[in-house]
């Protein structure tokens, strides 16, 4: 039943930055094809860059033309929630640590770190010679200012929840004191660019919304809302200068149009490919497809505060009646892996657990036990055409539940209405997905703890609460995994969510793009990319 369809990814030896900070030798210096040269026209507002860039002006690397599926609402990493913003910001900002190829945390702005014996004090040594795009040096004050801002406001404050205080010991040392042990602190600080380090001055001045200033391989040039974002190579990047001159992000919302643009050579890279197109694309010579098993998970949530879904037997009956392999194939073609739990097989935290399978007879029996008559239940199932796979899944669910006498009224809404109804609890059930993260706490706490901020289904279970609370503070990795396994087992058994599958991440690019790799955490890193003819 479990199926894996990992298509060979175009793995290229990632030019992961020669650390000597010297001029990166560029491959394919003639690759200036139709590069959008606006980059060069950008006013050079930081004279301090110039000494290093001197006369020979780092040979032409060309501009990568990337298509993104939507408009970033704004480009402040601390306050934006747009995934499109992060596609851009991934290349502009750095975090203290960052996920490596196996998603474990590796040094980034912090060169090394130590943890005290009581696990409550973390000391980070900052990398030497890191400069912001405005030319100023990175100091511990910038790190403290960034974290204090994040902790005070923004959607990412919860990541710093266990922190008592941040302190700049000296210019290159940051000390973080915790109220309680946080074994996942590194993941919280580095798993995504919402925890980016920005200059203290810009944070105080509140100018980051309009003028992003980071330490990343590319610096911000311009943002035309609804149209494009322009970034250019930062020559003093601590990790070695990028090979390309810059990236021009073009907003193209329609997936079909985006793909056509790639095929006709209007763009070099696109941020997603509809799963139904993957098979066709693999036969084409002029498109490379990057597909990896992702961390995102798709699920059905039933409203535990509405009869008869408050009865665990009814929820379990629905889980038994559903055939998640069929739902997966219908909604995602070959580009997903069915999974009865949230965390994907590729993760250390994966819990191999098949609780329900497909068993309509068992479903019928449970419905009888719960005293539900045939035809008595009709689920008001909320989906959104913002994510068409939810509508497809709903059609299959409707057909499958029909077999055990459960009716389904599908309600398709635009996403803002959908979100409002979700918040108001105005649904019997809904289908959606979460963008998966690296640490298991991100998979479970907000969704299934009775106090969780995203527990819209109203699940409340003392056992799960206890397990999730304990696991948060457990520092022994194996014990911690065991706690999460128990929590997952209980969550699945009680059908807090009925999990369907982990979807693959699919990106595509032109054959002349080399050095790019599709990553399971969806980080779109262009620093190792070069363009060839």
């Amino acid at each position, binding site marked *: 039943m479990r199926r894996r369809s990992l298509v060979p990814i175009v793995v290229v030896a990632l030019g992961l930055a020669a650390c000597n900070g010297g001029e990166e030798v560029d491959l394919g210096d003639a690759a200036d094809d139709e590069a959008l040269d606006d980059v060069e026209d950008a006013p050079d507002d930081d004279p301090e860059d110039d000494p290093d860039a001197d006369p020979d002006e780092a040979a032409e690397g060309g501009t990568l033309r990337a298509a993104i599926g939507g408009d970033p609402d704004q480009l402040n990493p601390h306050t934006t929630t747009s995934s499109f913003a992060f596609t851009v910001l991934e290349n502009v900002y750095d975090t203290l640590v960052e996920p490596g190829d196996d998603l474990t945390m590796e040094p980034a702005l912090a060169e090394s770190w130590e943890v005290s014996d009581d696990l409550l004090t973390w000391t980070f040594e900052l990398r030497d010679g890191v400069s912001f795009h405005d030319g100023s040096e990175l100091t511990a004050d910038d790190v403290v200012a960034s974290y204090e801002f994040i902790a005070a406001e923004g959607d990412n404050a919860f990541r710093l929840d266990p922190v008592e205080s941040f302190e700049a010991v000296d210019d290159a040392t940051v000390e973080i004191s915790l109220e309680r042990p946080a074994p996942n602190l590194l993941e919280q600080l580095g798993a995504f660019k919402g925890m980016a380090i920005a200059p203290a001055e810009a944070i105080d001045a509140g100018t980051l919304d309009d003028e992003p200033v980071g330490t990343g391989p590319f610096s911000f040039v311009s943002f035309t809302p609804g149209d494009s974002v322009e970034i250019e190579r930062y020559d003093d990047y601590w990790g070695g200068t990028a090979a390309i001159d810059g990236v021009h992000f073009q907003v193209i919302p329609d997936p079909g149009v985006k793909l056509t643009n790639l095929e006709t050579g209007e763009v070099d890279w696109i941020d997603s490919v509809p799963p139904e197109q993957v098979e066709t694309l693999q036969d084409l010579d002029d498109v490379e497809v990057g597909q990896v098993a992702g961390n995102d998970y798709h699920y059905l949530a039933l409203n535990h505060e509405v009869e008869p879904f408050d009865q665990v037997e009814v929820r379990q009956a629905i889980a038994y009646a559903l055939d998640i392999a*069929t739902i997966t194939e219908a909604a995602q073609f070959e580009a997903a892996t069915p999974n009865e739990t949230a965390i994907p097989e590729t993760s250390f935290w994966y819990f191999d657990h098949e609780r329900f399978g497909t068993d309509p007879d068992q479903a019928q029996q449970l419905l009888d036990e719960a005293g539900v008559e045939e035809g008595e239940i009709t689920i008001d199932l909320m989906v959104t055409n913002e994510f068409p796979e939810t*509508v*497809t899944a709903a059609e*299959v669910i409707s057909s499958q539940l029909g077999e055990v006498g459960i009716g389904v009224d*599908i309600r398709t809404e635009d996403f803002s209405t959908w979100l409002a109804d979700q918040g108001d609890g105005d649904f019997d059930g809904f289908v959606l997905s979460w963008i998966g993260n690296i640490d298991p706490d991100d998979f479970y706490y907000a969704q299934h703890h009775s106090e969780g901020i995203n527990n819209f289904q109203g699940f409340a279970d003392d056992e799960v609460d206890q397990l999730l609370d304990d696991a948060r503070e457990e520092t022994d990795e194996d014990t911690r995994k065991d706690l999460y396994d128990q929590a997952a087992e209980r969550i699945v058994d009680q059908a807090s969510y009925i999990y369907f599958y982990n979807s693959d991440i699919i990106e595509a690019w032109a054959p002349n793009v080399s050095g790019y790799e599709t990553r399971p955490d969806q980080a779109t890193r262009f620093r190792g990319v070069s363009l060839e003819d």
Partner: protein
Amino acid sequence: MSDQEQQPTDAPEPRGAGLEQPEIEHRPRWRETLSVLMSNRLAAVGLVVLVVMVVTAILGHRLAPYALDAQDLTRRFDPPSADHWFGTDDLGQDVFSRVVIGARSSLLVAGVSVGISMVVGTLLGLLAGYRGGWMDSTLMRTMDVLFAFPVVLLAIALVAVFGPSLRNTMLAIAVVFTPIFARVVRGSVLSVREQLYVRAVRSLGAGDLRIVLRHVLPNVAAPVLVQTSLSLAFAILTEAALSYVGVGVQPPTPAWGSMLSDAQRYMAQGWWLSVFPGLAIFVTVMSFNLLGDGLRDALDPQQRSIIEARGAGAKDGDA
């Protein structure tokens, strides 16, 4: 259609026989209209196609070779074949069955919504045109406000507010179409109101209600009828547009518009997914338009004599 039924009731008219002359003409007129209409070949084709569509819509599930929820992922994107005349879709469902069952949604929505807007619009138009004064201003300015919005936009807004469902789709389209009828009727009433025969009945002491029902309404019936058939065409399109943007008829119930919108995703996998629902919309809308054009010609006395003359000439020519 209801107008046609109304007119025969005019016949048993006990009083003021001398004044009823216009109505004596009425009875034969609708038959005459029909025969003129049928002599217009395009309109006749339109009418026949629509009858077929309506029968399809009524029989729906019984005509469809496959059940609505017959999904089969092993048969996704099968091209048209003897088993599946119009091929299969992304869930392996039979497209022919879905087009047939979808006729019901499309025609039901069009019929009910235009029916409502016709009745309400006609009443408002009669009231505004006959009463005049502040009543006229208030009603028609309100209609103008509704009229100012693009049809589809207003319908989408209404459905978004009240929630997507078959009923709300019908109501939304009805609201959007009401001003059209109100305007058409009011315009006709304004001219009929001042006709000599109306003034004559009034001077004989006839009440407003009687004047409106017996003398004004029958005389505005023709434009309403034409407007109805044209509106039905637009209503089909509006329903398709609403379903296309996902706020119309809800899955799994098929509707032509939503089938078309789903098909857009799978353009590369199967042309048949978009062609057949699109064809169904095209043929139906075209038929309503042909019928509407035919009706307009048939109900217009001047046009009618031309058509009759031409028809006669054509017959002579054929002979």
